[in-house]
């Protein structure tokens, strides 16, 4: 199966939030932006318009606290640069980069990405 190289604006990008160490801020009922910090690009999975339940099912077996998503259009408006970057065991793998020419995101970009992302599944408290 080959996906379109360009991620559609209406596609959602998904990222899992682990539960150990704890990235969840209980008083705000959301994750810290630290959960979105990664060497090089920020790894996400593009939906390619799959049912959301299909995406969650892939993650559920992992030790995670939550699954969050963000619309690709929202990423581009920050601005950041979502790119489809499939890997051998995951054709949906994508990364969010700073721009066309720079990979590493700034803390400001990461904070905005974090704020614009929405929890769609929280462990033991499904939405």
């Amino acid at each position: 199966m080959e996906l379109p190289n360009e991620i559609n604006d209406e596609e959602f990008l998904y990222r899992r939030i682990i539960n150990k160490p704890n990235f969840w801020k209980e008083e705000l009922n959301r994750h810290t932006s630290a959960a979105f910090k990664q060497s090089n690009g920020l790894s996400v999975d593009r939906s390619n318009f799959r049912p959301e339940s299909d995406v969650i099912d892939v993650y559920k077996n992992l030790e995670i606290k939550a699954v969050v998503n963000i619309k690709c259009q929202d990423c581009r408006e920050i601005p950041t640069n979502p790119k489809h970057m499939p890997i051998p065991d995951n054709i949906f793998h994508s990364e969010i980069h700073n721009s066309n020419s720079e990979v590493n995101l700034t803390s400001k970009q990461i904070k905005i990405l974090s704020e614009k992302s929405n929890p769609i599944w929280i462990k033991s408290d499904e939405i």
Partner: protein
Amino acid sequence: MVASPPYTEIVDQRNFNYNFNFNNFSDSIKFFGDSNNNKTINNYQFALKDFNIALEKINSFKNLETNWDTYGALPITDIVINSSLTFLNKFKIIPDIFPTGRGSIQFEFEKSNGDYLEFEIFTDKINYYLKTNSIDIEEQLNPLNLDSILMTFNGTTE
């Protein structure tokens, strides 16, 4: 039995003015540290419960193994952990503390009105990001500016 000093006095004992040029990161970290700190903390542990919990949390990051975040993150280095332990001395109000997938440790404060302040400790620098209604700045931390940054965010140097 000698009465223990109030918490604020203990914290003030840790605020030394070092005359460093900050030509390198290790000098910066020395500025935040206090060589007598262990003795002070041991004498007045009951007054530093939150601080000790934060110390334990940072030390727990030593146990993070490769791929701890499920996205290939490497372990947090001893340099980052030790720098974070020292940097923690500077805060009267303990921040939320998290490891990151890019090898740093993040201290953060977030208010209900959206005001936000984070410090990110790397192996060779500390960056900060401050966002309020009127300020939006992200840059490398000059240790001499820490108090003014905290003042801007909190209204005090706490």
